[in-house]
Protein backbone atom coordinates (compact mmCIF):
# COMPACT_ATOMS: atom_id res chain seq x y z
CA UNK A 1 0.00 0.00 0.00
CA UNK A 2 1.42 3.41 -0.96
CA UNK A 3 1.91 6.20 1.52
CA UNK A 4 -0.67 8.31 -0.29
CA UNK A 5 -3.25 5.56 0.25
CA UNK A 6 -2.25 5.21 3.89
CA UNK A 7 -2.64 8.95 4.44
CA UNK A 8 -6.05 8.80 2.78
CA UNK A 9 -7.11 6.06 5.21
CA UNK A 10 -5.62 8.08 8.03
CA UNK A 11 -7.90 11.00 7.25
CA UNK A 12 -10.89 8.77 7.93
CA UNK A 13 -9.49 7.92 11.36
CA UNK A 14 -7.79 4.62 10.55
CA UNK A 15 -5.36 4.02 13.43
CA UNK A 16 -3.74 1.04 11.71
CA UNK A 17 -2.70 3.21 8.77
CA UNK A 18 -1.33 5.72 11.27
CA UNK A 19 0.67 3.00 13.05
CA UNK A 20 2.27 1.88 9.77
CA UNK A 21 3.27 5.47 8.91
CA UNK A 22 4.51 6.08 12.44
CA UNK A 23 6.73 2.99 12.31
CA UNK A 24 8.18 4.10 8.98
CA UNK A 25 8.92 7.70 9.90
CA UNK A 26 9.43 7.86 13.67
CA UNK A 27 13.14 6.95 13.66
CA UNK A 28 14.29 9.43 10.96
CA UNK A 29 12.20 12.29 12.36
CA UNK A 30 13.48 11.60 15.89
CA UNK A 31 17.06 11.56 14.59
CA UNK A 32 16.53 14.85 12.75
CA UNK A 33 15.00 16.64 15.74
CA UNK A 34 17.61 15.21 18.13
CA UNK A 35 20.45 16.57 15.98
CA UNK A 36 18.71 19.91 15.47
CA UNK A 37 18.07 20.33 19.19
CA UNK A 38 21.20 18.59 20.53
CA UNK A 39 19.24 16.18 22.73
CA UNK A 40 17.32 19.05 24.31
CA UNK A 41 14.59 18.12 26.79
CA UNK A 42 11.98 19.42 24.32
CA UNK A 43 13.08 17.04 21.56
CA UNK A 44 10.39 14.50 22.46
CA UNK A 45 7.68 17.17 22.55
CA UNK A 46 8.60 18.30 19.04
CA UNK A 47 8.60 14.73 17.69
CA UNK A 48 5.22 14.09 19.33
CA UNK A 49 3.78 17.31 17.95
CA UNK A 50 5.03 16.44 14.46
CA UNK A 51 3.20 13.12 14.50
CA UNK A 52 0.13 14.59 16.14
CA UNK A 53 -0.09 16.92 13.15
CA UNK A 54 0.10 13.93 10.84
CA UNK A 55 -2.98 12.62 12.66
CA UNK A 56 -4.93 15.88 12.82
CA UNK A 57 -3.81 17.58 9.60
CA UNK A 58 -3.02 14.59 7.39
CA UNK A 59 -5.66 15.79 4.91
CA UNK A 60 -3.42 18.75 4.11
CA UNK A 61 -0.67 16.50 2.77
CA UNK A 62 -0.62 16.43 -1.02
CA UNK A 63 1.31 13.42 -2.40
CA UNK A 64 1.61 15.15 -5.79
CA UNK A 65 3.78 17.94 -4.40
CA UNK A 66 6.08 16.19 -1.92
CA UNK A 67 7.05 12.89 -0.38
CA UNK A 68 5.57 12.23 3.05
CA UNK A 69 9.03 12.22 4.62
CA UNK A 70 9.68 15.71 3.20
CA UNK A 71 6.33 16.92 4.53
CA UNK A 72 7.09 15.53 8.01
CA UNK A 73 10.63 16.93 7.99
CA UNK A 74 9.16 20.30 7.03
CA UNK A 75 6.81 20.23 10.03
CA UNK A 76 9.61 19.10 12.37
CA UNK A 77 11.96 21.76 10.99
CA UNK A 78 9.41 24.56 11.51
CA UNK A 79 8.67 23.34 15.05
CA UNK A 80 12.41 23.41 15.85
CA UNK A 81 12.76 26.95 14.51
CA UNK A 82 9.65 28.06 16.46
CA UNK A 83 11.17 26.51 19.58
CA UNK A 84 14.45 28.40 19.12
CA UNK A 85 12.55 31.67 18.65
CA UNK A 86 10.33 31.12 21.67
CA UNK A 87 13.30 30.39 23.86
CA UNK A 88 15.20 33.41 22.58
CA UNK A 89 18.06 31.37 21.31
CA UNK A 90 20.33 33.63 19.33
CA UNK A 91 19.78 33.02 15.63
CA UNK A 92 23.20 33.33 14.13
CA UNK A 93 23.27 35.37 11.00
CA UNK A 94 24.78 33.95 7.86
CA UNK A 95 26.94 37.08 7.63
CA UNK A 96 28.57 36.14 10.90
CA UNK A 97 30.37 33.28 9.20
CA UNK A 98 34.08 33.30 9.41
CA UNK A 99 35.96 34.01 6.19
CA UNK A 100 36.73 31.17 3.84
CA UNK A 101 40.12 29.69 4.62
CA UNK A 102 41.61 26.55 3.21
CA UNK A 103 43.44 24.98 6.10
CA UNK A 104 44.81 21.51 6.41
CA UNK A 105 42.63 19.40 8.60
CA UNK A 106 44.68 17.51 11.13
CA UNK A 107 44.90 13.77 10.77
CA UNK A 108 43.91 13.26 14.36
CA UNK A 109 40.37 14.06 13.39
CA UNK A 110 40.25 10.77 11.51
CA UNK A 111 40.10 9.08 14.90
CA UNK A 112 37.88 11.66 16.46
CA UNK A 113 35.18 9.78 18.28
CA UNK A 114 33.84 12.26 20.71
CA UNK A 115 30.20 12.48 19.71
CA UNK A 116 29.58 15.27 22.18
CA UNK A 117 32.05 17.50 20.36
CA UNK A 118 30.35 16.89 17.03
CA UNK A 119 26.99 17.61 18.63
CA UNK A 120 28.26 20.83 20.21
CA UNK A 121 29.93 21.92 17.00
CA UNK A 122 26.74 21.34 15.03
CA UNK A 123 24.85 23.45 17.57
CA UNK A 124 27.24 26.32 16.99
CA UNK A 125 26.29 26.51 13.34
CA UNK A 126 23.55 28.88 12.19
CA UNK A 127 20.25 26.99 12.19
CA UNK A 128 19.89 26.87 8.43
CA UNK A 129 23.41 25.55 7.89
CA UNK A 130 22.86 22.94 10.58
CA UNK A 131 19.54 21.93 9.13
CA UNK A 132 20.94 21.68 5.58
CA UNK A 133 23.81 19.45 6.73
CA UNK A 134 21.55 17.24 8.85
CA UNK A 135 19.04 16.77 6.04
CA UNK A 136 21.58 15.93 3.34
CA UNK A 137 24.27 14.16 5.37
CA UNK A 138 22.26 12.24 7.96
CA UNK A 139 18.72 12.04 6.63
CA UNK A 140 19.71 11.03 3.11
CA UNK A 141 17.42 13.67 1.68
CA UNK A 142 17.87 14.85 -1.89
CA UNK A 143 19.17 18.37 -2.45
CA UNK A 144 15.85 19.35 -4.04
CA UNK A 145 13.76 18.16 -1.09
CA UNK A 146 16.05 19.89 1.41
CA UNK A 147 15.92 23.08 -0.65
CA UNK A 148 12.11 22.95 -0.65
CA UNK A 149 12.02 22.65 3.16
CA UNK A 150 14.42 25.55 3.62
CA UNK A 151 12.61 27.52 0.89
CA UNK A 152 15.79 28.23 -1.04
CA UNK A 153 17.31 27.22 -4.40
CA UNK A 154 19.56 24.16 -4.75
CA UNK A 155 22.52 26.49 -5.39
CA UNK A 156 21.81 28.37 -2.16
CA UNK A 157 21.52 25.05 -0.32
CA UNK A 158 24.93 23.95 -1.61
CA UNK A 159 26.41 27.25 -0.51
CA UNK A 160 24.85 26.82 2.96
CA UNK A 161 26.26 23.31 3.27
CA UNK A 162 29.73 24.25 2.07
CA UNK A 163 29.92 27.12 4.57
CA UNK A 164 28.53 24.94 7.32
CA UNK A 165 31.02 22.16 6.68
CA UNK A 166 33.90 24.63 6.58
CA UNK A 167 32.88 26.08 9.91
CA UNK A 168 32.35 22.62 11.41
CA UNK A 169 35.84 21.64 10.38
CA UNK A 170 37.31 24.65 12.17
CA UNK A 171 35.22 24.08 15.28
CA UNK A 172 36.23 20.44 15.48
CA UNK A 173 39.87 21.29 14.88
CA UNK A 174 39.73 23.76 17.76
CA UNK A 175 38.29 21.13 20.10
CA UNK A 176 40.94 18.49 19.67
Amino acid at each position, binding site marked *: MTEAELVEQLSSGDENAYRILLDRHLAPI*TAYVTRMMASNADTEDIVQETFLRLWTQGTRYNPDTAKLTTWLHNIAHNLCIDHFRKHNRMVLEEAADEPDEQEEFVDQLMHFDN*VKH*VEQSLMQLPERQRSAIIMCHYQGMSNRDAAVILEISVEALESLMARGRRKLRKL*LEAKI
Partner: protein
Amino acid sequence: MNHTRLLQIINAYGTNSERWPEEERLAAVHQLEQDSKAQQAIVSLKSLDAALDSYVTAPAPHLRNKILGNLRKSWVDSCIEWLMPSFDELLAYFWRPVLAASLPLITGLLLGSSLFTVEIADTWEDEIELIALYDSGNLNE
Protein backbone atom coordinates in the same frame (compact mmCIF):
# COMPACT_ATOMS: atom_id res chain seq x y z
CA MET B 1 31.40 18.23 -15.24
CA ASN B 2 34.59 20.14 -14.64
CA HIS B 3 37.10 20.58 -11.80
CA THR B 4 35.32 23.61 -10.29
CA ARG B 5 31.94 21.92 -10.16
CA LEU B 6 33.44 18.76 -8.69
CA LEU B 7 35.07 20.78 -5.90
CA GLN B 8 31.74 22.51 -5.25
CA ILE B 9 30.06 19.12 -4.90
CA ILE B 10 32.78 17.78 -2.57
CA ASN B 11 32.68 20.90 -0.38
CA ALA B 12 28.90 20.87 -0.13
CA TYR B 13 28.00 17.18 0.02
CA GLY B 14 31.19 15.67 1.42
CA THR B 15 33.53 12.95 0.30
CA ASN B 16 31.06 10.07 0.01
CA SER B 17 29.89 9.93 -3.60
CA GLU B 18 26.62 8.30 -2.49
CA ARG B 19 25.62 11.66 -1.00
CA TRP B 20 26.34 13.56 -4.22
CA PRO B 21 23.43 14.75 -6.38
CA GLU B 22 22.10 11.74 -8.25
CA GLU B 23 21.94 13.42 -11.64
CA GLU B 24 25.60 14.48 -11.48
CA ARG B 25 27.06 11.53 -9.61
CA LEU B 26 28.34 9.47 -12.54
CA ALA B 27 29.99 12.43 -14.24
CA ALA B 28 31.50 13.58 -10.94
CA VAL B 29 32.98 10.16 -10.18
CA HIS B 30 34.41 10.03 -13.69
CA GLN B 31 35.92 13.51 -13.27
CA LEU B 32 37.38 12.52 -9.90
CA GLU B 33 39.28 9.61 -11.44
CA GLN B 34 41.35 12.00 -13.55
CA ASP B 35 41.47 15.01 -11.21
CA SER B 36 44.39 14.80 -8.76
CA LYS B 37 43.51 18.07 -6.98
CA ALA B 38 40.00 16.87 -6.33
CA GLN B 39 41.44 13.60 -5.01
CA GLN B 40 43.58 15.62 -2.57
CA ALA B 41 40.47 17.51 -1.44
CA ILE B 42 38.75 14.19 -0.81
CA VAL B 43 41.66 12.99 1.36
CA SER B 44 41.75 16.19 3.41
CA LEU B 45 37.98 16.21 3.98
CA LYS B 46 37.50 12.52 4.78
CA SER B 47 38.18 13.13 8.47
CA LEU B 48 35.31 15.62 8.71
CA ASP B 49 32.89 13.09 7.27
CA ALA B 50 34.25 10.45 9.65
CA ALA B 51 33.61 12.79 12.57
CA LEU B 52 30.08 13.53 11.34
CA ASP B 53 29.38 9.83 10.83
CA SER B 54 30.43 9.10 14.41
CA TYR B 55 27.47 11.14 15.67
CA VAL B 56 24.79 8.48 15.90
CA THR B 57 21.55 9.25 17.72
CA ALA B 58 19.90 6.83 20.09
CA PRO B 59 16.45 5.51 19.18
CA ALA B 60 13.53 6.39 21.45
CA PRO B 61 11.18 3.38 21.34
CA HIS B 62 9.00 4.70 24.20
CA LEU B 63 7.98 7.62 21.98
CA ARG B 64 5.83 5.35 19.81
CA ASN B 65 3.49 4.48 22.67
CA LYS B 66 3.43 8.08 23.87
CA ILE B 67 2.38 9.28 20.43
CA LEU B 68 -0.29 6.60 20.06
CA GLY B 69 -1.56 7.45 23.55
CA ASN B 70 -1.99 11.07 22.51
CA LEU B 71 -4.46 10.07 19.82
CA ARG B 72 -7.15 9.33 22.38
CA LYS B 73 -8.56 12.79 22.74
CA SER B 74 -10.72 14.18 25.53
CA TRP B 75 -14.36 14.84 24.66
CA VAL B 76 -13.72 18.60 24.97
CA ASP B 77 -11.05 18.42 22.27
CA SER B 78 -13.33 16.32 20.11
CA CYS B 79 -16.18 18.85 20.51
CA ILE B 80 -13.91 21.78 19.64
CA GLU B 81 -12.56 19.96 16.61
CA TRP B 82 -16.09 19.07 15.55
CA LEU B 83 -17.35 22.63 15.92
CA MET B 84 -14.33 24.17 14.21
CA PRO B 85 -13.43 21.91 11.29
CA SER B 86 -10.55 22.70 8.96
CA PHE B 87 -11.20 24.88 5.94
CA ASP B 88 -10.60 21.88 3.68
CA GLU B 89 -13.92 20.43 4.73
CA LEU B 90 -15.98 23.08 3.01
CA LEU B 91 -19.35 21.42 3.53
CA ALA B 92 -18.71 20.76 7.21
CA TYR B 93 -17.47 24.32 7.56
CA PHE B 94 -20.94 25.64 6.67
CA TRP B 95 -23.31 23.16 8.22
CA ARG B 96 -21.61 22.58 11.53
CA PRO B 97 -21.94 26.19 12.78
CA VAL B 98 -25.58 26.15 11.69
CA LEU B 99 -26.14 22.96 13.63
CA ALA B 100 -24.21 24.33 16.57
CA ALA B 101 -26.27 27.54 16.53
CA SER B 102 -29.49 25.53 16.63
CA LEU B 103 -28.38 23.72 19.81
CA PRO B 104 -29.84 26.42 22.17
CA LEU B 105 -33.18 26.20 20.33
CA ILE B 106 -33.29 22.41 20.70
CA THR B 107 -32.29 22.71 24.36
CA GLY B 108 -35.07 25.29 24.90
CA LEU B 109 -37.68 23.09 23.30
CA LEU B 110 -36.67 20.12 25.43
CA LEU B 111 -36.71 22.17 28.63
CA GLY B 112 -40.03 23.76 27.75
CA SER B 113 -41.74 20.47 27.06
CA SER B 114 -40.48 18.94 30.32
CA LEU B 115 -41.21 21.90 32.68
CA PHE B 116 -44.71 22.97 31.55
CA THR B 117 -46.83 19.82 31.47
CA VAL B 118 -50.62 20.22 31.18
CA GLU B 119 -52.50 17.80 33.38
CA ILE B 120 -55.27 16.27 31.41
CA ALA B 121 -57.66 13.97 33.12
CA ASP B 122 -57.62 10.92 31.05
CA THR B 123 -58.65 8.09 33.37
CA TRP B 124 -62.35 7.10 33.93
CA GLU B 125 -62.04 7.86 37.65
CA ASP B 126 -60.95 11.43 36.92
CA GLU B 127 -63.85 11.79 34.48
CA ILE B 128 -66.43 10.75 37.13
CA GLU B 129 -64.87 13.08 39.66
CA LEU B 130 -65.09 15.98 37.26
CA ILE B 131 -68.74 15.22 36.39
CA ALA B 132 -69.61 15.01 40.10
CA LEU B 133 -68.07 18.39 40.78
CA TYR B 134 -69.88 19.89 37.84
CA ASP B 135 -73.26 18.55 39.05
CA SER B 136 -72.82 19.83 42.62
CA GLY B 137 -71.98 23.24 41.21
CA ASN B 138 -75.27 23.28 39.27
CA LEU B 139 -77.31 22.29 42.37
CA ASN B 140 -75.91 25.17 44.36
CA GLU B 141 -77.24 27.57 41.76
